[in-house]
């Protein structure tokens, strides 16, 4: 996989600015490449920006996402091109030339100060596509408040000036003179070594299909529209109302599989995410209004991800979401109250039942986002019949065109974590391809030397109007007068937009002129803008830790908009507190240390080998530790996949490459027995048959794999006519004669999965059973195959094989866990009894063979590694990632990553993807010469430490340890600055720099000062 081109270009084009594209861009830019991030709309964000909350934690999607947006927006090595698309891509891997068209925005991005006046005065209202056209926006607009770039745009289709030559108001009132009606589309030509496609998906249902009255009845909405309805930034500002009359819905229904699993509409595949999407929305609806009834109509619950079943169970049992396994054909309108009527057949009462709902949400499946067909044609990419860029199992991010990679929803419908994982894998492939060119195109920021400062504090306060955001409520002059009277404040002024690029130079000049040594900005929020101002301080030669931000927008003008007087008062107090703290701030210095440019991979299975190769192919050394006597792991036992590939061949190929790779040292029969150090500089000991080898490494990838569950139920092990799927598939291929003699077999799903003692779904067993039954049917078409299942979870394009299996005559019967099938021996005859839930019949069957779909368990070495590396696991024994959505391949501990079955049950292609992604995350560490530690870290006062071990126990990152002097020590490189240990330490021996007691108390005192006065 090494680059076969001389002198590749160290730049990559990423197409699509959703979570996939953003993650991919970051993963490339952080490993030494320059990235062009191309987005066709006016802002980055994609579908994820439209989501309200994400399961399983029900965290706010925007809150999770906006730090990523800020990160990508501020990254020196990422160039964002919005309103742009690729017209042409010429050249070869390593050196592509792309022709890009950048459509007009009609508002100059450089000049726009985001004051919002244009939108305020624009007379033209337009249905807002970002809000699913449920609300209105203006023709001059900002897509959403966290948009990147945070610049307004004009909708040329609706703008009165651009369509009819009338109006022109926005140009007249724009204070920055940014409105440019005469902007023309630009053509750009850019070079890049690789291209990643991440154009995402959109809802497949449009009003044209007219399904379930969508587009006909106002109270029938898609799941994405409902997401906007729930959102605080949505059309109803987070108040759950229904579109027709604004009534609060008391009774909401979801209909699943709309435009999914529907061969009649040429959409035979499953959209993978809608089951969980609906479960989450129903739970959120119940929390919005606990009296609201929620009902989900479905056919199979596809909760095949990590912890998904648990979420669905809780939705049912704790949140009282009603699940009805019955699919709907038509939705009727009750004209008297705009309610919707759903008709089902009630088997218990043997009659039709009409149920009325205030609102019906259609869980629409997904299709490639608009315009993708053109793009795939222009780029010469081969899509599958449904328009998706599906990939091969051993190269899960490679398209039909070399050098062009793919990730996210355009590969196949998928959720956020799978997209993030795949984005990393796509970045890895691009990175491998052009690894020679690493660091050739990237911008290195120079650091200015700090100037000496006065001993006495000289505070400067800058109050921001934020357009009218703050100034519209808070009396700025009044605040300024008050500020100027505060002790140590030597200078104070105000700006319309303190954050604008021009203002930064002014601030630098002011700092120098007034010899300021503390800067307080009273503005929006430190979350988004602190890094920007710290940078400005640096430019002025001032230590960036001498900065303080008073959040008078988020905490005053926005929340007390209806009470300007109190908002002004509160602003003064917050600034006073900030000034008080700033006086006690001290300059802090980030330290750096050299990075060990070698990686460690634990586990020599599919994931481990792939991860090792991902790093080794980029020119870095890897230690691969495997506890058994051979590489290959469990996947060696898999003969073929559902799609007809050979895992065994892949494994053999990987073993060949790993064993002969100059950058990989393989340790067989070995275990990691000690582990220490921190991000970028770990050290450990490998024990190999009694021999101890010390190694050093900058990053670790945990790929301890999984193993099949050994059934204890259904006579397994007692009767040789009972096999597991793995055994069955092996025997099918080894003994075709035997296979041809089989008359009838029964497969039982969920053996050792979705049980009280092991609640996980093992994700792969439904597909494995379908795969093996198809194989048997091919060898022996006359054999009868009966599959007993709980939910058929052949998600994504695997659904096509479920369809095929049915067509071939495999019989699928559903059972419920309360009435499991009975397998017994009746005087030598093997008998299976079960009840079919759809025909309500009890069946008895005498098969030749019963095949159990055994679940997946975590690998044997997992517990030892978890203890050694202080990693958390979930109840089932799989490792717990740092963040379920956005950091799926990382651990909370820096420099340690996760891949394959160690994370959760996965398919081969998914394991390969995850391993590549983990390899790329490790590359972020390994490709650097040195690491810089944050200066805002916890520090132990050795004098006070009683070595009580509390800090060691509470630290979520495993940073503190007891050093040779017998006291706690926290390596700055391992500390995340979370502040837990200082607050827990009983001896008050730990201090968190930049948030010292002294500083915080000063702040609190200043805040309380006025309260004291009032009393």
């Amino acid at each position: 996989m090494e680059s076969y081109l001389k002198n590749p270009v160290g730049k990559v084009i990423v197409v699509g600015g959703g979570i996939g594209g953003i993650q991919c861009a970051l993963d490339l830019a952080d490993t030494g490449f320059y990235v062009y991030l191309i987005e066709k709309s006016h802002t980055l964000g994609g579908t994820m920006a439209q989501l309200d909350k994400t399961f399983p934690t029900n965290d706010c999607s925007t809150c999770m996402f906006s730090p990523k947006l800020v990160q990508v927006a501020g990254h020196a090595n990422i160039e964002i091109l919005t309103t742009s698309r690729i017209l042409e891509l010429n050249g070869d891997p390593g050196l592509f030339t792309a022709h890009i068209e950048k459509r007009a925005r009609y508002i100059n991005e450089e000049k726009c100060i985001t004051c919002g006046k244009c939108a305020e005065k624009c007379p033209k209202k337009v249905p807002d596509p970002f809000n699913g056209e449920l609300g209105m926006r203006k023709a001059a607009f900002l897509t959403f408040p966290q948009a990147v770039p945070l610049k307004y745009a004009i909708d040329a289709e609706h703008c009165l000036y651009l369509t009819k030559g009338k109006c022109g108001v926005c140009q007249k009132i724009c204070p920055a003179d940014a409105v440019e009606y005469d902007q023309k589309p630009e053509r750009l030509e850019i070079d890049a070594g690789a291209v990643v496609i991440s154009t995402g998906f959109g809802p497949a249902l449009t009003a044209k299909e007219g399904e379930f009255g969508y587009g006909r009845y106002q109270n029938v909405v898609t799941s994405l529209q409902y997401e906007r309805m729930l959102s605080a930034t949505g059309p109803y500002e987070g108040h759950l109302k229904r579109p027709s009359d604004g009534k609060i819905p008391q009774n909401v229904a979801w209909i699943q599989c709309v435009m999914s699993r529907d061969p009649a509409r040429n959409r035979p595949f499953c959209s993978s995410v809608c089951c969980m999407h609906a479960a989450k929305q129903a739970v959120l609806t119940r929390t919005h209004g606990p009296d609201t009834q929620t009902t989900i109509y479905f056919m199979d619950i596809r909760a095949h991800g990590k912890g998904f079943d648990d979420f669905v169970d809780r939705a049912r049992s704790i949140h009282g979401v009603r699940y009805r396994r019955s699919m709907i054909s038509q939705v009727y309108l009750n004209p008297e109250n705009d309610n919707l009527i759903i008709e089902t057949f009630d088997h218990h009462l043997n009659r039709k039942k009409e149920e009325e709902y205030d609102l019906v949400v259609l869980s629409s499946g997904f299709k490639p986002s608009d315009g993708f067909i053109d793009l795939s044609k222009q780029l010469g990419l081969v899509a599958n019949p449904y328009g998706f860029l599906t990939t091969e199992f051993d190269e899960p991010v490679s398209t039909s065109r070399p050098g062009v990679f793919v990730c996210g929803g355009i590969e196949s419908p998928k959720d956020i974590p799978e997209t993030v994982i795949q984005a990393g894998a796509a970045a890895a492939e691009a990175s491998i391809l052009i690894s020679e060119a690493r660091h050739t195109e990237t911008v290195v920021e120079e650091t200015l030397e700090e100037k000496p400062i006065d001993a006495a504090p000289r505070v400067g306060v800058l109050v921001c109007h934020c357009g009218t955001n703050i100034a519209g409520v808070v009396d700025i002059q009044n605040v300024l007068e008050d500020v100027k009277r505060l002790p140590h404040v030597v200078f104070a002024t105000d700006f319309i937009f303190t954050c604008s690029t021009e203002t930064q130079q002014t601030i630098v000049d002011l700092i120098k002129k007034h010899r300021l040594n503390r800067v307080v900005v009273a503005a929006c929020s430190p979350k988004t803008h602190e890094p920007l101002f710290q940078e400005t301080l640096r430019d002025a030669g001032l230590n960036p830790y001498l900065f303080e931000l008073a959040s008078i927008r988020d905490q005053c003008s926005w929340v007390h908009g209806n009470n300007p007087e109190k908002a002004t008062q509160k602003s003064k107090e917050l600034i006073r507190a900030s000034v008080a703290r700033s006086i006690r701030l001290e300059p802090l210095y980030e330290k750096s240390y050299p990075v060990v440019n070698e990686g460690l991979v634990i586990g020599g299975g599919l994931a481990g080998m792939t991860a090792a190769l991902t790093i080794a192919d980029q020119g870095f050394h890897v230690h691969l530790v495997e506890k058994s006597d051979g590489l290959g792991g469990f996947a060696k036992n898999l003969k073929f996949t559902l799609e007809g590939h050979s895992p065994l061949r892949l494994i053999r190929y990987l073993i060949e490459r790993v064993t002969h790779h100059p950058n990989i040292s393989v340790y067989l029969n070995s275990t990691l027995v000690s582990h220490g150090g921190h991000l970028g500089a770990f050290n450990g000991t490998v024990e190999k048959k009694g021999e101890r080898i010390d190694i050093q490494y900058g990053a670790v990838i945990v790929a301890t794999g999984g193993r099949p569950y050994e059934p204890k139920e259904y006579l397994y092990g007692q009767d040789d006519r009972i096999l597991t799927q793995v055994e069955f598939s092996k025997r099918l291929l080894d003994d075709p004669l035997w296979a041809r003699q089989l008359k009838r077999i029964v497969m039982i799903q969920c053996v050792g999965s979705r049980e009280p003692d092991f609640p996980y779904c093992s994700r792969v067993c439904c597909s494995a059973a379908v795969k093996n039954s198809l194989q048997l049917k091919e060898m022996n078409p006359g054999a009868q195959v009966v599959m007993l299942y709980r939910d058929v979870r052949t998600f994504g394009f695997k659904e096509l094989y479920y369809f095929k299996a049915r067509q071939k005559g495999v019989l699928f019967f559903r059972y419920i866990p309360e009435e499991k099938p009975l397998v017994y021996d009746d005087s030598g005859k093997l008998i299976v009894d079960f009840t079919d839930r759809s025909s309500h019949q009890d069946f008895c069957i005498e098969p030749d063979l019963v095949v159990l779909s055994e679940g997946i368990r975590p690998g044997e070495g997992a517990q030892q590694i978890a203890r050694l590396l202080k990693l958390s696991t979930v109840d089932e024994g799989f490792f717990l990632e740092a963040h379920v959505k956005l950091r799926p391949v990382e651990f909370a501990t820096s420099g340690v990553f996760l891949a394959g079955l160690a994370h959760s049950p996965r398919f081969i292609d998914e394991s390969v993807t995850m391993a590549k992604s983990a390899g790329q995350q490790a590359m972020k560490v390994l490709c650097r010469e040195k690491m810089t530690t944050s200066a805002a870290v916890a520090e132990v006062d050795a004098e006070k430490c009683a070595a009580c071990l509390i800090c060691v126990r509470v630290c979520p990152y495993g940073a503190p340890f007891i050093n040779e002097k017998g006291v706690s020590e926290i390596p700055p490189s391992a500390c995340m600055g979370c502040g837990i240990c200082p607050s827990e330490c009983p001896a008050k021996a730990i201090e968190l720099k930049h948030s010292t007691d002294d500083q915080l108390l000063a702040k609190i005192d200043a805040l309380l000062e006025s309260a004291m006065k009032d009393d």
Partner: protein
Amino acid sequence: MKLSFYPGCSLEGMAVDYARSIDAVFKALDIDLVEIDDWSCCGATAAHSLSEAMSVILPARNLSAAEQMGLDIVSPCANCFNRLRFSQQMIQKRVLDIPWPVTGDLKIHDMTRFLAEPPMIKKIEKRVLKPLKGLKLVCYYGCQMVRPPRITGYTDYENPQTLDRISAATGAQVIDWSYKATCCGASIGIARREIGDSLTKRLLDKARQAGAEAIVVSCPLCQSNLDMIQKGRLERPIPIFYFTELLRLSFSDRGNPKWFKTHFTNPVQLLKTKSLL
């Protein structure tokens, strides 16, 4: 314009009113309907139910006759239309031997779709003398005209528009409702009355709920079912019109109460209160 016309058995009996109004409307629109020579029954549901072969062969005889005439067919009855289309598809697929020379190449129109084409609607609008202002209607299509879409060619089978467009052209107020194509029970009422009645009653309830004063139909069986069940019932009767009856009414400056004497649910009262008679 000239078309061959396949009236179907009902138009000679239960749906004489439909037949008469069709006559009047097509004359007014200056479209020549030539009755198919010596047409015979399409076999309806019975042939389909008991002998699939006959359900192809019986309509084929009429298709053959129309082909001799060389004129596209228009059918006023939903069931006939469905059977003719079905037979035509089977003939094209050459599923079985047909005793008559037939190619299945003619176009088969259902009368509503024929009249709902934009140029026809324009023609109708021009011809309207007395708009049916204030008359609140729902349009009822039944099953056979729209389903299965593979046979009928209706892609908007859940929310068909042909009758809606025609009724709107007469100036009446057309109300959208969800039960445009919900089954009325067809002929099941003859042998299993309670099944038929339960379906028909429900439709009338839903039409009332939607605020309709009358229902517009194009199928003789639907008309009889919806009309006759209201016999002797006093609560808010809903007259059931053939769409051609409404057209006829709107085409003349002064309608004739006699036109509606065959109805069980007499619409004269309703029309008078709206000053349409």
